[in-house]
């Protein structure tokens, strides 16, 4: 297992390098000039001064040199200063990450707690009414865009029924991370975050369960007189879980990528909301750093997924 972890971590290095190259190149290829934007509100700065600033920042050096210098700074967690907030970007990111993680992890938890049992129910009632309902539900949820679902949640649960708040993390004046007030504010966004998983998980779980239910050892378990509950829970459900780990990659991607929409719709001050606000304010350093960080989170989640997979199924080895 130790060797597996090390090898998997080494495999992530080229990926991270690729992410760095893409974010760097996109920034450099952009037709807009960061220096001109930085001083957009100070018309007294002359074009000659802008040119010398550009020289001082090393923007006239060859691209590979600029890239190496930039990677060096990124490695020391120096992402520059925000044009808009006038604070180090790393501070702003560090403030937002816990909020995003809280939301994503809660969403993951809800989608697993709701999605897996739905899949089991569908498999046990194959071809009957509950199976059809769950199928329609998951196909339907897959087709509804996140922001539409978010708007519906706000429209009905927050505005019409007044059960939930329409946005933000706490009541004004309240500041807490684990309390009823936060949980109440978390409900709407988590419902939305869990949507992707609730749409995808039941279908996989159903397929896995059906395959396992037809295995010989199921008949053996039944014939030795085990209660049906025990057969399903211990023999079928646990074995069906193993391949499910693989699709967590997809669920995680949806969670991290979808966080922008969720946080914008519910005004949740996480990483997604930060990149949205920063992009609107043309705050380049934050956008670049947020993309890097979100990608890094995804790389880490993929590593964790692979480790979990190796852990539940010892036959897995790295390589093609």
């Amino acid at each position, binding site marked *: 297992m130790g060797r597996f972890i090390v090898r998997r971590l080494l495999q992530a290095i*080229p*990926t991270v390098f*690729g*992410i760095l190259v*893409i*974010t760097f190149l*996109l*920034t450099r*290829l*952009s*037709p*807009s000039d960061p220096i001109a934007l930085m001083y957009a509100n100070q018309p007294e700065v002359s074009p000659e001064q802008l040119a010398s600033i550009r020289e001082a920042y090393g923007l006239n050096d060859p691209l590979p040199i600029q890239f190496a210098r930039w990677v060096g700074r990124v490695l020391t967690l120096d992402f520059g200063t925000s044009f808009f907030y006038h604070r180090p970007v790393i501070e702003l990111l560090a403030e937002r990450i816990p909020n995003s993680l809280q939301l994503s992890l809660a969403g993951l938890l809800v989608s697993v707690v709701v999605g897996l049992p739905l899949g089991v129910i569908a498999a046990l009632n194959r071809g009957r009414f509950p199976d059809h309902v769950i199928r329609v539900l998951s*196909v*339907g949820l*897959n*087709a*509804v*865009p*996140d*922001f*539409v679902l978010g*708007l*519906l949640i*706000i*429209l009905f649960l927050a*505005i019409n029924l007044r059960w939930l708040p329409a946005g933000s993390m706490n009541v004004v004046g309240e500041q807490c991370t684990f309390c009823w007030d936060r949980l109440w504010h978390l409900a709407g966004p988590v419902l939305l975050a869990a949507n*992707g998983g609730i*749409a*995808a998980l039941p*279908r*996989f779980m159903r*397929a896995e369960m059906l395959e396992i239910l037809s295995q010989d050892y199921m008949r053996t378990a039944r014939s030795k007189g085990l209660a049906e509950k025990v057969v399903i829970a211990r023999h079928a459900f646990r074995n069906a879980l193993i391949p499910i780990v693989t*699709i967590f990659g*997809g*669920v995680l*991607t*949806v969670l*991290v*990528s*979808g*966080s*922008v*929409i969720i946080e*914008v719709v519910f005004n949740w001050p996480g990483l*997604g909301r930060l*990149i*949205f606000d920063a*992009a*609107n304010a*043309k705050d*380049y350093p934050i*956008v*670049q750093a*947020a*993309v890097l960080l*979100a*990608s890094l989170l*995804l*790389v880490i989640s*993929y590593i964790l997924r692979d480790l979990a997979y190796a852990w539940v199924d010892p036959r897995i080895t790295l390589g093609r």
Partner: protein
Amino acid sequence: MTAIAVLLVLVVLALSADVLSDHLFRTGFGDIDLPGAFAKPSLEEPRLWFGLDALGRSEVVRMLYGGRVSLFVGVFGSLVALTIGLTVGMTAGYFGGWWDDVAVWMITTIESIPLIYFLIMIGLYFKLDAVSLTVFIGAIAWLGAANLARGQTISLRGRDYVTAARTVGASPGRIILRHIFPNVLPLMVVVLMLAVGGTILAESAISFLGFGIVPPQPSWGNMLSGATQYYFKGPHLIFFPSAAITLTVLCVFLIGDGLRDALDPRLRGSESIARR
């Protein structure tokens, strides 16, 4: 079957947006009628069928033009993605070696950048219109197709008929085009349908956030982003674009689902890949 019919109607409506707005609705997508802003849907005049938006523009006409953009980006974005994915996937799978390593590296790298973040960054750095957005989405969304094509090609590469073709001196290009491509194609039809749904969702999401299709050009996504400020005044402005996106994507996924069941049961549930 119903799904195909509904989708066809939507496509025809979107394609005839010009004709319909000239002759039936008698108003363009940008014609402003401020006194009539937020008019509720009514059957009095054709242009009022879906009501008017915040600037008094006819919602039904904007829906037609918006549908044009959404469907264009959806279909052509997926075609671009499929073309890149097939080319990279089949060549990587067939030749192996360093090119395969590079292909796998590109796939894992792009896969690790969350799509919406990626698109926001692109939308911020470049001015996007329907065509450039299509190209960008296609250039990002080819991973699923490439992965499947690569896997399929690797399993086909060792088949006897491919070896036979090679022994009679067929060039690699000919083998890929004439012997491997036709066998990968059925799978790709399914992937294409799922990708169209995923691409329409991606376009609407990025336009909703304001970094995709820029107003005054309507798209279903950016119509919604304007509408969110008017929960109370104009709920119909939220309803129609939402319903249109959901209906379209649902139809596309249902068709993809049907094709998948007909062609290849191994692909179960891969729309979560398309969704990203």
